[in-house]
């Protein structure tokens, strides 16, 4: 009877098997994976100041477009990290 009770106690523990539940890696928005364009150069040897200014303005625009993507990546990372950690 003593042995039976001991075996009972051991068996009560039963078995445990960890079951992994995997979380899918989130996709990145398409707008973020587009590469930043190369800056424009001034064409020609004799160029008017207004033509040069136009190129400069376009390059500023491209810089800010690229900065928007970088900011987007930072936001994406912070948000996805927060969501991922909320699951644990």
């Amino acid at each position, binding site marked *: *009877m003593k042995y*039976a009770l001991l*075996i*009972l106690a051991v*068996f*009560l*523990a*039963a*078995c*445990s*098997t960890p*079951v992994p*539940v*995997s*979380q*899918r890696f*989130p*996709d*990145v*928005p*398409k*707008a*973020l994976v587009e590469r930043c364009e*190369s*800056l*424009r*150069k*001034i064409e*020609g*040897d*004799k*160029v*008017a*100041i*207004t033509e*040069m*200014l*136009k*190129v*400069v*303005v*376009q*390059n*500023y*625009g491209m810089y*800010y*477009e690229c900065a*928007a*993507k970088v*900011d*987007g990546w930072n*936001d*994406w990372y912070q*948000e*996805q990290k927060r*969501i*991922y950690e*909320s*699951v644990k």
Partner: protein
Amino acid sequence: MLNWVYWAIIAAGITGVLAGWIGKWIPFYGNYVKILQPVGIVLLVLGVWLRGGYDTEMSWRAKVAEAEARVAAAEQKSQETNTVIEQQVVEKTKVIKGKTEYITQYLDREVVKKEEIIKYIEQCPVPKEIIDIHNQAADLNKAAEGKK
């Protein structure tokens, strides 16, 4: 269903153990005590083991279901966040492109027509050195990539 089978095995085991005890005092039944008691103990142990396993299994399934629900909710939220971020980036890019276009058009439409600007353009073309410096600066990324 399985739950009831396990309970039935436990009940049969307890019955066997008790019958083994009480049977000692029953004259005819006493002959079977030696068999009933060990069978009862075996059934009781088996029943408790199966019941324990069943409970553990159910507990794990509940945990897995809960974890899956949390993951599904997170994936949904992740998708929504992606949409919001994409919209923000697309919107910002659109505004920047629009503003760049507006400044360029304003330059072509208004600035170049001003007399002092026309005079300046005619008299002072940008020297080649200045253009070269600008173009070198525009290619700084190539230097960083080791192409220059």
